[in-house]
């Protein structure tokens, strides 16, 4: 393992300190318990708080700021944060209209946020994101994982909250965006968790992991490496099938997010975009919004995920509205 680190134990604190210092106009860091908030506390709005294991940067702290999150709680690498972080963050940012938590659907995240909300003295609600269509849903499982689609949920809900909308309305939009969003990921290499010091999985030069998560968990299937168009074809097929099984009409406008896992060059991400947009057009889906880059990473994993969000006027409006965060900024 070769990484730019000093002591394994200090990686998070040093990195978060650098982040907070580089973006001191936008975010403020608190340690012990660890959470980040906007530098300027918002007033009289539903506050949006997210969090999760570290290693997915810029998710979530990179999305703190006007039009998106009010606070974020980073856990250890790939490990959910703890309830005390969430309680302290909520205490720091709440602005009398309630707290909305945006939580990626993993047992650990769900349980820690749940324990926090049980102790929380404010009105609150939670949007659970579960956009990963690689995980087959069944009544027996904990359900699908939340992956890169979470960024779209955070952007739209964050935008709505800025308008003064109430907690129930914000939660409803989050749930709607989540329901209309589907993702699938492909890994070409594993990532290396700093504290582990070695790759989470081994994979040959001729293989890929299809349906991989964002934690270096093995995917649904180990498959043969093949041309980009063939890989993208299977991903797009999975997403379209997912929408069909939900009864969502696919002949409409969509937002296409091509997300790099951390070690995949932009050159390849745009090539994937090109391939995906063409295939989607064949399904009657017209890509009118896009985001291409590293938005929900898995440390240094080579690979990418494809996320599609079926737009309607409300989602479009909240995607397009101004946002000003370290990692996503437009309109101001």
């Amino acid at each position, binding site marked *: 393992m070769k990484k730019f680190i000093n002591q394994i134990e200090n990686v998070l604190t040093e990195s978060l300190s650098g982040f907070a210092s580089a973006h001191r106009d936008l975010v403020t860091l608190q340690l012990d318990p660890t959470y980040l908030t906007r530098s300027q506390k918002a007033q009289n709005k539903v506050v949006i708080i997210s969090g999760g294991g570290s290693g997915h940067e810029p998710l979530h702290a990179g999305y703190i700021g006007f039009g998106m999150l009010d606070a974020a709680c980073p856990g250890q690498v790939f*490990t959910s944060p703890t309830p005390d972080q969430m309680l302290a963050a909520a205490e720091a940012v709440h602005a009398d209209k309630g707290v909305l938590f945006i939580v990626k659907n993993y*047992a650990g995240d769900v349980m*820690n946020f749940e324990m926090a909300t049980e102790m929380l003295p404010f009105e609150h609600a939670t949007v659970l994101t579960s956009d990963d269509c690689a995980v087959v849903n*069944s009544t027996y499982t904990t359900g699908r994982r939340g992956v890169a689609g979470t960024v779209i949920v955070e952007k739209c809900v964050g935008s709505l909250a800025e308008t003064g909308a109430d907690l129930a309305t914000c939660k409803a939009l989050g749930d709607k965006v989540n329901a209309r969003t589907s993702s699938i990921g492909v890994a070409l290499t594993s990532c290396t968790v700093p504290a582990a010091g070695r790759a989470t999985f081994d994979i040959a030069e001729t293989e890929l992991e299809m349906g991989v998560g964002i934690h*270096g968990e093995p995917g*649904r299937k180990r498959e043969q490496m093949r041309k980009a168009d063939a890989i993208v074809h299977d991903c797009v097929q999975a997403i379209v099938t997912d929408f069909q099984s939900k009864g969502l009409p696919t002949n409409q406008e969509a937002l296409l997010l091509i997300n790099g896992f951390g070690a995949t060059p932009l050159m390849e991400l745009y090539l994937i975009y090109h391939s995906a947009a063409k295939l989607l057009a064949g399904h009657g889906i017209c890509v009118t919004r896009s985001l291409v880059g590293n938005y929900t990473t898995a440390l240094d994993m080579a690979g990418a995920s494809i996320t599609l969000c079926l737009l309607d006027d409300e989602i479009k409006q909240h995607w397009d509205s101004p946002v000003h965060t370290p990692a996503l900024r437009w309109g101001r």
Partner: protein
Amino acid sequence: MKTNFILSASLAIHAAIVAHEADIESLDRAIGDGDHYINMKRGSEVAASLYNELLPLPADEVLNKIGMKLLSTIGGASGPLFASFFMSMAKVSKQNGSDSLLEIAAAFAAGVQAIMQRGKAQIGEKTMLDVLVPVSHQFTLLAAEGKSSTEIAHALKETANQGLESTRNLIATKGRAAGLGERAIGHLDAGAKSCQVMIHTVCDLVIKGANP
């Protein structure tokens, strides 16, 4: 249960987790995200570090403080689960006492029950519960039969082994391995492994003569 015993167990558990680094780590790497050993180490380390602070306190408070500390230290799936275990154990110990083996077994059962509630999981879902539930069941049974603490300790070690082994051929329906479908078959569950290690450690203390 005595404060002294709990704190000795906590030191021994920390040592045992570290001694089993390779096993625990590789299991979570195979079908999880590879952090379970780090999480267990962080948790057991912080629990052990409370030794001096907790020594003067009654057992139920010790259990509760350990639970609270784990809650704000471990994170992940195992953090809230083990925290719930200790906090529930504390509550039942306080209500009913935990002097007799039967009372300890009841407190343990309450802890396991809390894990099931928090994680909305049952036995057979390829989690730590596949060790904890049969161990708890057996514990209560043997305590009710009036078995000695040493006899119980020997039996529970064996039950823990079987529980761990039972996770091998399961498909996971809870936790991260749930994303893997059939690929999880053939692997032991990491959380089940660390529970087996911890149960062995505590039972060994009893077998070596410690008084629970």
